[in-house]
């Protein structure tokens, strides 16, 4: 007898609805699975056979053929165990076949017929909803993720028997089982001790360093890339770790998108939507594939995991140059194009790059009392960060160590400079800075309403001319400055982008000379990267 059952598969970040077709007919007893399957699915035969037996289901001594269609797509993962097992039961008439219409089933089976969690639930259920499925049967551990996806009834099951029982029930019975499943899930997750989530740091713990804090705030407001350089122990890493605390919270759409990425990567442990912006900090030995996404059907790499969040490269000059240059395309386009043997994939990778580096191999340049690195050593060290890479970093800031006395001063945030300007009397803690960032974002949103872009850091050359209009005085000032500081056209564009954000932070409609000179200030740190 033949039957078919809907299930979902992953291909990169995208998912598709697949059909598991099961046919049991007379012939020599055997169990074949076809449909361009990876070895973990072929191995599933043994898992399913034992699981069925342990669930007191008879595996008929007949010819069992399973096909997973569309047969042209290469399939991987363990989500097909449960639908195949249910398919065999249906083909034997243990489950009414009409019940399986508009139901999607996914889950991994254990030998004792228990159902184990799978990767990528969120995108699979989202796709199921799009394809008009009414119900989904998922592992109990993934139930929360499924519910987040949208307009589909979700049933979480713990074992095979429960799944078959659910399918045999009528409408009311199913509803009741669904409610009970959610209850059970909640009890279960309460029992698990909640892992303490890594607390983001607050800017108020950083004393002094207003120049760097202001740079961080500007970067957050305009989603500019930021380069911090300074001697070891100056607080570069600390600053970078604080940055997520001043990024605006994610909206629902972004939450869903990012959670889907993490779900595919198998990094959505709590089964809840991510509300924090990602902060991804790869070690400098990271391989190009780990950074960009690797495999014939690539898993999302670090750049994709940092989508809409911060990609922090600590000790940037220690990364391999070839690894760093991978970042050029995502930094330009906000996505990464991966051409692999399994096909071509486009993954989102719109991140804010925060890089930290020492100014020389020993770290103390330009303090010549401590640093004896030669000019060529310094050049060799910094040359790993290529010119095109630097071109994409709008803000660069030199972080100087805070004097010892300042660290021990009483009071966490002392107001040091009082004056009646928009920024003068603000306190440099994350909450206050976030307010400023939000206001600046609001201004940008209003200005760019209806256009392709929404943030200053993403302005292209043509858009800069349109949105960063300068008055005559400002234009002359920029010309003079560009001549003096030997700025290229591209450097001028970066100055204008940053100046736009600085004006937004000060709630000014027009870019003033002061914003231009501040933007130039945040370029000067980069001078160290130019050959003398």
């Amino acid at each position: 007898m033949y039957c078919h059952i809907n299930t979902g598969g992953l291909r990169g970040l995208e998912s598709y609805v697949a059909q598991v077709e099961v046919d049991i007919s007379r012939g020599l007893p055997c169990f074949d699975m076809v449909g361009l399957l990876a070895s973990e699915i072929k191995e599933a035969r043994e898992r399913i056979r034992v699981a069925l037996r342990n669930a007191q289901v008879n595996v008929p001594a007949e010819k069992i053929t399973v096909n997973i269609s569309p047969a042209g797509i290469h399939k991987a993962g363990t989500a097909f165990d449960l639908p195949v097992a249910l398919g065999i039961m249906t083909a034997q008439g243990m489950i009414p076949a009409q019940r399986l219409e508009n139901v999607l089933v996914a889950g991994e089976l254990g030998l004792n017929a228990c159902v184990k969690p799978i990767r990528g639930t969120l995108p699979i259920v989202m796709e199921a909803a799009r394809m008009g499925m009414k119900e989904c049967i998922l592992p109990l551990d993934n139930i929360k993720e499924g519910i987040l996806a949208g307009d589909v009834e979700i049933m979480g099951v713990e074992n095979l028997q429960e799944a078959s029982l659910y399918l045999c029930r009528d409408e009311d019975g199913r509803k009741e089982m669904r409610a009970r499943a959610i209850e059970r899930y909640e009890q279960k997750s309460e029992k698990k001790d909640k892992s303490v989530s890594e607390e983001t740091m607050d800017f108020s713990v950083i004393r002094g360093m207003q120049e760097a804090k202001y740079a961080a705030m500007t970067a957050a407001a305009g989603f500019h890339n930021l380069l911090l350089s300074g001697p070891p122990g100056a607080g570069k890493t600390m600053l970078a770790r604080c940055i997520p605390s001043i990024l605006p919270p994610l909206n629902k759409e972004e939450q869903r998108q990012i959670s889907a990425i993490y779900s595919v990567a198998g990094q959505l442990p709590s089964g809840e939507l991510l509300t924090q912006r990602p902060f991804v900090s790869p070690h400098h030995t990271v391989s190009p594939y780990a950074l960009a996404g690797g495999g014939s059907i690539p898993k999302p790499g670090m750049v994709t995991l940092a989508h809409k969040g911060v990609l922090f490269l600590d000790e940037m000059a220690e990364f391999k140059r070839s690894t760093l240059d991978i970042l050029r395309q995502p930094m330009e386009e906000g996505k990464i194009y991966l051409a692999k043997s399994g096909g071509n994939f486009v993954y989102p990778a719109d991140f804010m790059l925060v890089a930290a580096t020492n100014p020389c191999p020993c770290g103390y340049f330009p303090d010549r009392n401590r640093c004896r690195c030669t000019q060529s050593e310094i050049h060799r060290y910094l040359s790993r960060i290529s010119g095109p890479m630097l071109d994409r970093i709008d803000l660069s800031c030199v972080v100087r160590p805070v004097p010892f006395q300042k660290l021990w001063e009483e009071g966490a945030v002392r107001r040091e400079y009082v004056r009646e300007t928009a920024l003068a009397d603000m306190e440099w803690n994350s909450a206050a800075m976030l307010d400023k960032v939000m206001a600046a974002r609001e201004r940008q949103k209003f200005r760019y309403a209806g256009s392709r872009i929404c943030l200053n850091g993403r302005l292209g050359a043509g858009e800069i001319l349109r949105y960063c209009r300068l008055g005559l005085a400002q234009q002359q000032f920029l010309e003079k400055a560009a001549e003096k500081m030997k700025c290229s056209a591209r450097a001028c564009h970066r100055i204008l982008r940053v100046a736009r954000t600085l004006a937004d932070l000060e709630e000014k409609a027009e870019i003033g000379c002061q914003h231009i000179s501040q933007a130039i200030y945040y370029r000067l740190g980069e001078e160290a990267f130019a050959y003398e």
Partner: protein
Amino acid sequence: MNNLSAAGENTFSVDEKLQWTQEEAVQSYLLYTTRGIGAVSIRRLIEATGSASAVSRLSQDRLTELIGEKRTEALQKGKEAKRQSCAVKRFHQLQEKGIFFLPYWMEGFPKRLAEIPDPPVALFGMGRMPDFSQKTAAVIGARECSGYGRQTAAIFAAGLASAGVTIVSGMARGVDGIAQRAALDAGGSCVAVLGCGVDICYPPENRILYERLKKEGCLLSEYPPGTQPQARFFPERNRIISGLSDLVLVTEAREKSGTLITVDMALEQGRDVYAVPGRITDSCSVGCNRLIANGAGMAVSVSQLLQDLNMKKSVRMIQKNRNFHASDGRPLSNKIMEVLDCNPMSLDEIAGLLSQKGEQITVQEVMEELILLCMEEKAGCHGGMYFSAGSACIS
């Protein structure tokens, strides 16, 4: 050019003298590049005859008498027609490249240099040879210099150059290159003595300076063109730097610095040595301070150095200083200039000092003002640290 026929020795007309010079240069070059003939032999030959052309006409017996059998053989070997035409060709190639060759017995060789113990037998050069009868100063210092070292090197080099003093240095990284750049910028004359052939730019990062020196200054080397730099060449090169100068100024040197080799040579040659004092806690200035303690002159200002060289302070310098003092009506910039000094400071330090003084200024305002000051070249920035670029205090 191709007319290389022997000229009479008692020639007086200008044309003929020029031709003789040309002939002599070729002969000198042949002598200098003959394998197996060293500086001592050349000196002995020239002392006996007076010119390379005369040497070429010496009899074998006389040669043996002067430099011994072995070297005579070498000299004869060098005279083979094939080798000779090859050397002549090379010499002309050099001329086409704009490289001149100047042995010590020809006119134009710096007198001061000829007087030192162990002077170079000949110099190769590019560019325009400055007038070495004028005052000449060597500005030298560490390769890995601090902001202070850069600044003082530039101030002294520019000040001396604009007063008409020729600046000599080694085109090395750090102080040397900075001093020479400043001297050229000031429109002064400037000489670089290299530890490699004059057609080779070492260190490569000073390419721009090298090209400028070719056009606006002068490059000298005792090594034949094409010679790659070698560590042992540099101390030898240093004796030429000090030998060319009336005065040797060290702007920054650590306790064990290569610069001190030059100083030793300068003392041996009887040159005045000056050092720029630094803070005693700065490791970059230890060498300089020790020199002062041991009796070197203390370079406290350009005008003092000029005085010691018996020169007048240039008019241009004075004007520049006046410009510096002129206030332009931005109160904040003056306040910042009061706080800034030669010692580089970070923005937070500057803002901290201002707030200590009771000024109520935001970091953003200080930022803006610093950029303006940098644009006006009143302040300088190096690695994110700011300093006063004013030469007011020392000129």
